[in-house]
């Protein structure tokens, strides 16, 4: 952000998500939106996270529960297909894992430093007791 003086910004503890007028924003995908530099869309808060969700598409049934429940809109879903996680904004809360209904789960929490391949390789088998 430019180093503006005290008299050079709009009053109020207020930031605009977009610089100009927007139209049909609900029908526009995040990556196609013209966010302002003040929007947190381009800011990474990945370093807030201690543990991370890993997505295993082999078991996903595209129920969209994770997408609905994620408090930070960090589940990326396109045409009702789960395609991944926005790791710049995910805080590692684990709610997506909690609500995942598959057996085994399609999302599991791993330490932040765990490689994705190793995480997928260690995925648990189906729990037959359920």
């Amino acid at each position, binding site marked *: 952000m430019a180093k503006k003086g005290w008299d050079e910004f*709009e009053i109020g*503890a207020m930031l*605009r998500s977009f610089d100009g007028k927007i139209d049909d924003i609900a029908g526009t995908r995040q990556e196609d939106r013209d966010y302002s530099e003040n929007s947190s869309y381009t800011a990474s808060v990945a370093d807030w996270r201690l543990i991370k969700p890993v997505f295993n598409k082999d078991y996903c049934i595209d129920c969209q529960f994770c997408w609905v429940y994620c408090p930070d809109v960090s589940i990326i879903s396109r045409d009702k297909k789960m395609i991944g996680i926005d790791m710049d904004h995910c805080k590692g809360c684990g709610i997506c894992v909690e609500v995942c209904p598959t057996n085994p789960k399609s999302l599991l929490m791993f330490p932040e430093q765990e490689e994705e391949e190793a995480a997928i390789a260690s995925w648990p088998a189906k729990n037959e007791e359920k």
Partner: protein
Amino acid sequence: MAFDKMELKDIEVWDGNFAAAQALRQCQIDVVAAYPITPSTPIVEGYAKFLSDNYIEGEFVMVESEHAAMSGCIGAAAAGGRVATATSSQGFALMVETLYQASGMRLPIVLNVVNRALASPLNVNGDHSDMYLGRDSGWIQIDAYCPQDAYDLNFIAFKVSEDHDIRLPAMVHQDGFMTSHTAQGVHTLSDDVAYNFVGNYKPMNDMLDFEHPVTHGVQTEEDWHFEHKARQHNDLMTKVLPKIQEAFDDFEKLSGRKYNIVEEYDTKDADVCVVCLGSSVETAREVALEMRAKGIKAGVVGIRVIRPFPFEQVRDALKDIKSIAALDRSSPNGAAGMLFNEIAGALFNTDTKALLSGYVYGLGGRDLTKAHLVDLFKELQANVDAGKVTTPLQQFIGVRGPKLSYL
């Protein structure tokens, strides 16, 4: 319009609370979020009654505390509504955290504060402890001395507060019980005239403008916080008083009633002068006239706008006075009183030879009697005659027991 208008007589017999409630009705407040507390309760009760009787198109939000009441007001104001509420004393104290949010977010909320003492000991009567508690919160603070003022100054508050050059919340103060529960003749404005004076609410950065999404109440650290606070202080120091004067001028043209940022009574040739707030101004005015009949050239200054403090106007009003008394109706608790300090600050570094002494009075609703003020004016005259302050700089008036004074 979907609501009914009310026929008012030219003069109605209203107490300060009902006068304020009528002003809220005539301004057509969109949202009142309130947690009623004595002695301000009838203001929000009045709004709720007018709302349920279809005299207002708005929303009354019942909440679980004063903190929530102001939070609700902040949300509604950020959404883009005309918003007001009322409180007193302990409720005001609980609101303090959110008062700073409202002013920092530059939301034009109007808060009617019916001044009351702060516990402990618990007390429901009027003094200025709550008003003084709010004086660093970044709000505009305007003081009513009687029910007529409480009515009129609400219109002024909305007009100034909502101006896009200002966008700062405003408190309208009146004295608990002395003003809030004492019925007097109040000259009214018709609904249309009153509403047109305040005008339609003009939203700014409102959250309900879906074509321009905004995030309100953001966080800034050492990188931006100081600039925001500097901007807020700058606008309070440079923009608010001219806008209030403009509103006073417009209001005088409309109603014939003249308000001043600093109210001066017989100060032009005065030797001695009392500076005070609230209903005490009227008492002091009456005694000053009686002192003049006895040969003491007495004047009174009432501070109409407490924040931003009108340094220039106070300086002009007091520069030729020989002995000044600053009357504070709040315990300074370890310092000189607020008015003593602000007046000293205004006059210091000027050519004035004025003597300044401070008095603390009226805590918890203790009366300031005419006899107190007669003695006080005589002390001021003694200062003039001696050419120096002959009393301690801080004296308590009307407290039982041995005379209490400091400094």
